[in-house]
Every structure is written in C-alpha cells, then in structure tokens.
C-alpha cells in the first residue's frame, strides 16, 4: 500500500468534509447564479415606484394659446400632430400642465407630483432642461426623460429642416463586424471578440484565485501539523517529501472537486431559475436598468425589418462563434495551467509554512510569492488589448506568471509553440521549486521557536539529507 495515497486520501477527505468547504461549494454557484437572477428579476418584478411628473413645456403651452385664440380645430390638429409629448410608461406618468405655472412649482410639487420638469421655450437651441423635486430623481428616470426628449427634439428639428423622419429611420445603419479567423490549414471560423475577452478574464482570474486559495490551504495545513506537533510522529513513518507532496496533491484534488462542483451547480441553478422562475425567453444581450430596458423596447418596437434581421443575424453569429471557441482546449488547458501554477506556488507556500511557527509570521515570506501573482493578474486583465504583444508573450512564457497570463491569451488562439514552450517551462519550474521546497520543508518542520530569515533558509537548502 503506497503511503502517499493514504496521505492524499486523508488530506482530501478531511477537507471536503469540512463545513467551510461545503459552504463555499454551495455559496459560490449561488453567488454566480444570483447575479444572473437579480439582473433578470430586477427587470421582471423589481420595478421602481410609480412616479408622477408634471411637465411645464413652454412650447406646448404656446401651441395651446394659439389654438385657444384661433379656436380652430384644424389648427389644433395641425399643431398637435407635430407635437409629441413624452410618453408615460408603466412607472412614469407625465402630465403636461396647460398653464405656465413655473413660478408656482413648489405648489405643484405639494399638490402630489413627484417632480416638475421644466422645458423652456429655447429648449431646441439650448438642449438643457431642468427638473425640480424634493428627492433626487433616479438614474432610470433621468435616462428615460433624456432618451425621449432627444428623440422628440431631433424629430422636431428634422421637421423644421424639412427632412422626412421615415427616410432617416430607413437609412439608419448599425455596423456589426463579424470577425473571421483563417487558420493555417485554410479553414475559416467566426470568432467573437467579446466572448473571447470574457473567457480570457474569467479563466485567468479563476486560476489566480485558485492558486491563492489552495496555496494558502497547503501552507495552513503545514503550520497546523507543525504547531500541533504531529509532524514528527508522521515523518517517523513516511518521508517528509511524501508528506508534503501528499498534502499538495490532496489539496489540488479538493480544488478540482470544488471547481467541477461550481461548474455543475451553477449550470443547474441557472437552468432551474430559467425554467421555473422566468419565462423561457432568451436572455437579453444588452440591458442595464429596467427603465433603459423598457424605453428600449418601446422606442424600438416598431423596428425596421432590416434592423431586426441584422439583430437576428448577430445573435446567430454569437452562437456560431461560441461553437467555434475551442472549449475542449480551453478547459483542458485551464486544468493544466491551474495544476501547473498551483504545484509551483503551493510548493513555495509549503516551504513558507514549514519555516514558520504561526500564521502571523508568514508576512515576510509571502511577499515574494504574492508579487509575481499580482503582476500576472494585472497583465492578464489587459492581455485582450494585444494578446500577441512581446509583453503578453514573455509574461505567458515566464513560469511564475505563465499560468495566469497564458490562460488570458488562450481564447485568442496564440501559436501552438508558445503554449508548448510555456507548458514545458512550467513543468520544469515546478519540479525545481518542489525540489527546493522539499529541502526547506524537511528541515523547517522540525524547527520550533526559531526566528527564521532568508539566510537561515539558504542554510537549510545546503543541509544533507
């Protein structure tokens, strides 16, 4: 019976049975799916309070005056057909006041309106309007009014310039670039830059987070064994290196278990939410606030056929480019770079854990481990700007940053040679760091109550077996 398997088993089982692991495993997917859920829920039911806004529009009132003076129905129709009010929505009601009562705006507010919107006569030139209220208006309300006023004023200006709004709508153009990647073998695939960026950022961030989380777990486990004085009992049965590797591998398996559980649970949670709580509608590709969404649906509902077609096209493109993303390659590379990066760093974390007596002593040794990781994540977050720059290249080759930066480059199909060089260097480096860490570890775990510095660590490296 291989003892290292016994150690791996213990490390793995005690960790996944811990309450904190179970809580994290459930909370992670809940957080991820709740972001998704809250967005849609806000849009579905979490609407803001209804607001009633009084509008004092000098142009509108002038129009009314003319009608009153002329008492001509045709004139009324004529003017009012050109005049567009801001439409009321389900949550915002606009009432156009017929008298110019701007000086009495406070009285109006007191009479039950939530806000008074003042459109001066020169609104067409000045393009500023003012709103008065007791409480700050919401961003949604502001956007709603701005959007509609812009359209109304644009329309009015077009009318004055004698341009037909329908022509304008017909010639409105929205360009959507469909990016095609021609591969070396001549085949071409559609790609989607936005999705690639998302994968790049999420992938590299997950690796960064996992290395930190599980590296620290290895360190804490070792400190626990050292302060609990169990370590000498164990290493009278197994080699220190076996104990260290058993712990590192056991924790890595905990990490992978957590990762897969997160993926599976997130899919299940999101699927359930979609099935039971929401109508089976395709998630909107662009929405920010409920008002924004509403106004969009209202203003764009009479879509030009061409526009609708275009949108459908871009959606199908998205799906096609999703299909073209090498998920197999990305997931397997994710696992490789997670394991490689984790093995490299966790062995360093192990060395630190062995050298110190308490968590609190870790600071001075943690810094050199933390810095390359933080540099890597900063680089990774900007890789999508230029995935093949010299900068990105070198950071994705240097083993201490490569797991994170290469993960960020992967969705942009870097040359296979880059990936292979990066992988080989990573393997060689983690073998090296593990070997070094093992030497520090086997001395460190038996040192109690000693203030350790770098010179001391250097000495340990040179001790013979």
């Amino acid at each position, binding site marked *: 019976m291989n003892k290292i398997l016994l150690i791996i088993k213990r490390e793995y089982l005690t960790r996944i049975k811990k309450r904190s692991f179970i809580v994290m495993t459930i909370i992670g997917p809940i957080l991820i799916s709740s972001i998704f859920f809250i967005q849609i829920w806000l849009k579905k039911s979490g609407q803001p309070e209804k607001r009633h806004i009084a509008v004092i529009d000098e142009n509108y009132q002038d129009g009314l005056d003319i009608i009153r003076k002329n008492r001509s129905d045709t004139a009324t129709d004529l003017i009012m057909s050109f005049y567009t009010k801001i439409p009321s929505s389900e949550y915002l009601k606009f009432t156009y006041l017929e008298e110019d009562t701007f000086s009495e705006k406070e009285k109006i507010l007191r009479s039950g309106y939530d806000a008074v919107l003042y459109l001066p006569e020169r609104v067409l030139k000045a393009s500023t309007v003012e709103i008065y209220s007791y409480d700050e208006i919401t961003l949604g309300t502001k956007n709603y009014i701005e959007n509609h006023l812009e359209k109304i004023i644009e329309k009015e200006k077009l009318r004055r310039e004698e341009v037909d709004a329908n022509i304008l709508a017909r010639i409105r153009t929205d360009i959507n670039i469909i990016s095609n990647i021609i591969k070396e073998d001549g085949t071409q695939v559609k790609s989607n830059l936005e999705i690639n960026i998302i994968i790049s950022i999420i992938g590299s961030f997950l690796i960064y987070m996992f290395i930190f989380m599980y590296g620290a777990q290895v360190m804490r486990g070792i400190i626990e064994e050292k302060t609990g*004085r169990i370590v000498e009992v164990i290493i009278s049965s197994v080699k220190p290196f076996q104990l260290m590797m058993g712990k590192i591998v056991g924790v890595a398996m905990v990490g992978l278990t957590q990762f897969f559980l997160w993926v599976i649970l997130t899919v299940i949670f999101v699927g359930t939410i979609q099935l039971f709580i929401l109508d089976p509608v395709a998630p909107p590709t662009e929405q920010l606030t409920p008002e924004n969404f509403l106004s969009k649906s209202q203003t764009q509902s009479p879509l030009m056929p061409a526009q609708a077609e275009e949108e459908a096209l871009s959606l199908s493109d998205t799906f096609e480019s999703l299909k073209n993303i090498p998920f197999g390659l990305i997931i397997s590379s994710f696992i490789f770079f997670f394991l490689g990066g984790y093995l490299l760093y966790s062995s360093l974390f192990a060395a630190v854990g062995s050298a110190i007596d308490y968590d609190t002593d870790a600071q001075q040794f943690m810094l050199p481990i933390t810095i390359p990781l933080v540099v890597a994540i900063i680089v990774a977050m900007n890789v999508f700007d230029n995935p093949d720059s010299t900068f990105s290249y070198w950071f994705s080759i240097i083993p201490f940053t490569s797991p994170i930066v290469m993960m960020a480059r992967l969705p942009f199909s870097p040359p296979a040679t880059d990936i292979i060089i990066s992988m080989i260097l990573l393997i060689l480096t983690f073998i090296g760091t593990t070997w070094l860490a093992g030497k520090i570890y086997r001395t460190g775990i038996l040192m109690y109550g000693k203030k350790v510095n770098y010179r001391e660590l250097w000495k340990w490296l*040179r001790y013979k077996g």
Partner: protein
Amino acid sequence: MFPRRDAYGMRSENMELFSAQNIVKQFDKHTALNNVSMDVPEGSIFGLLGPNGAGKTTMLRIINQITAPDHGELFFKGEKLKPKHIHHIGYLPEERGLYKKMKVGEQSVYLARLKGLSKKDAQKKLNYWFEKFEIQAWWNKKIEELSKGMQQKIQFIVTILHEPDLLIFDEPFSGFDPINVNLLKQEILKLKEAGTTIIFSTHDMASVEELCDYIVLINKSENILNGQIDELKKKYKSNIFEIIFTENNFNLLESTLSFNYKILEHIKQNKNNILKVELLNDLTTNQFITHMLKIGEIVSFREVLPGMNDIFIKVVEENT
C-alpha cells in the same frame, strides 16, 4: 568499535538489536553528533541521556531515519538500517501531538496504516488496547475534546500498536500525572518482558534507575559514558558508607581515627545515629567497623552507591 561478525560475515547471536557506529552529524558549522556510538542489546531498556542540546534528539531522529548521518553506520537486527525497518520501529517523539480536529478512532487507524498495518489489523489491535485502557467511549471523539493526559494515552497506544521490535521514547512521562506515569512504566516493563527493545531518552534520572539496563551519556555532541547501569554504579562508587548505631559517645568518634575518614552527614533519630562517612587513606571497611564497635552498637552498615543523578552530574562536569 565495529559490529561483531562471525566467519560468514553474519552478525553473531545474542547481539544488539540496534547498533549505531561512529555517527557524525553536522548542521552547517555546528556539530550535533561527533563520533557517537551505541549498542542496544536485544530485550533491554536503553537510556539515552544527556543535558539539553547534547544531541539526543538528533540521534533519535537518525535512528528513525528522519535525518541521515553524515558519517557512521546503523544496524538493525544485524542488517544495515533501511527504510523498510521503519515498520519495526515505534517512535514517541518529545515534540508530539495529534490532529486536533480528527476523531480518535479515525486518526489511530490512519497512523497505524502509515506504519504498515492493514486497516483490519489496525482496527483489531486498537480494539484490544482501547478495551485494555477502558477508553472505547473516546473512539468517535475529536482529539481536541480530550484532556492532555487522555491525548497522551492515545499517543502511546498509537506508538506501540504495530508491535515494533524497537520502541523509542523521548521524555515519555511528560504530560502525565503520577498515576498515569506509573501505569505507563508498568506497560513499558511489560513490553520489555514481551521481548521488545526500548530506547529511552529522559532527564528524569529516577526513572532511568528504575527502568534502564544500559545507558549512553552524550554531552556536547560526544559520547562520554556508556555501559550497564550496575557496573557504572560500581565504577563510580566513592567509598561512602552509611552506618546506623546506638550510642552517643562522639568524643571517641572524633578523637580516634578521625583523620582516616570524613563524616559527611550525621542525623540523630531517636536513639539511632545515622552517619554517612567517606573512608580515606585505604581504611578498610573491617577496620572501620572494628573502630565503630568501640563506640556503640551497630544496627546496620551499607555501602552507598552513587545514584545516576550523581554520576550524570559528575561525568558531565568532568567533561565540561
């Protein structure tokens, strides 16, 4: 000193179970062990003694193959010490503990399996010991729920569970109350009777005298004394005798022969005088007793042998 071998190159019968020859271990510029040898006869209790920082723990770690010596050879049952021998050695280190969050039973089985026992065997043997110590109820408790003394009991059981041929105890009694110290001593003696060889490292000279057959004394990384306890005591006796007699004629005691002995201690107990004397100038015991007969009636007379404590202090001071 080299291991005795017979004509076939095999080590002879009735030999040491364990032997270390000329062990040298250096840490950077510090020499932890300098040419230390020890031969542990089979079935004996062997004391590894020395002041703090003498190198005892390093020696024990070398025996357990936790660290390797720079020079020197180690033999177990006549063979060169190899990793496979780990299964035949049990080690209770001075710095000892258990996983606090793990359950007693689960942890005991785990540690036993690391020593090469199968799960079934471990379970069976643990049942035996838990019953013997009447601690079955602890099986599903976490270590942190037990008192320090209870934890030490578990630790002891785990150390001896795989029935090793060689048991190594480093300060085994620390953390035990006197009742449990006694219980432990009985168990150690029982293990010895059953044929287990024991290396025992401690500062407690009383328990050394009580338990050990042989000792080695290390000071400042060097072996300064070794041998059988009885022989060492004889070797380090210093002509000190204790005589108990009933009389009070001290003028005589001090006037005659007084230049030939030195009174170290004089205690009056009712009618009895207890006198500790050192005989000088080749004064024989017979001459001394003849002299004492004139003074009073002798109740008892015995030689005072040095305790291990005295020997320890004397030898260490001589070598400092």
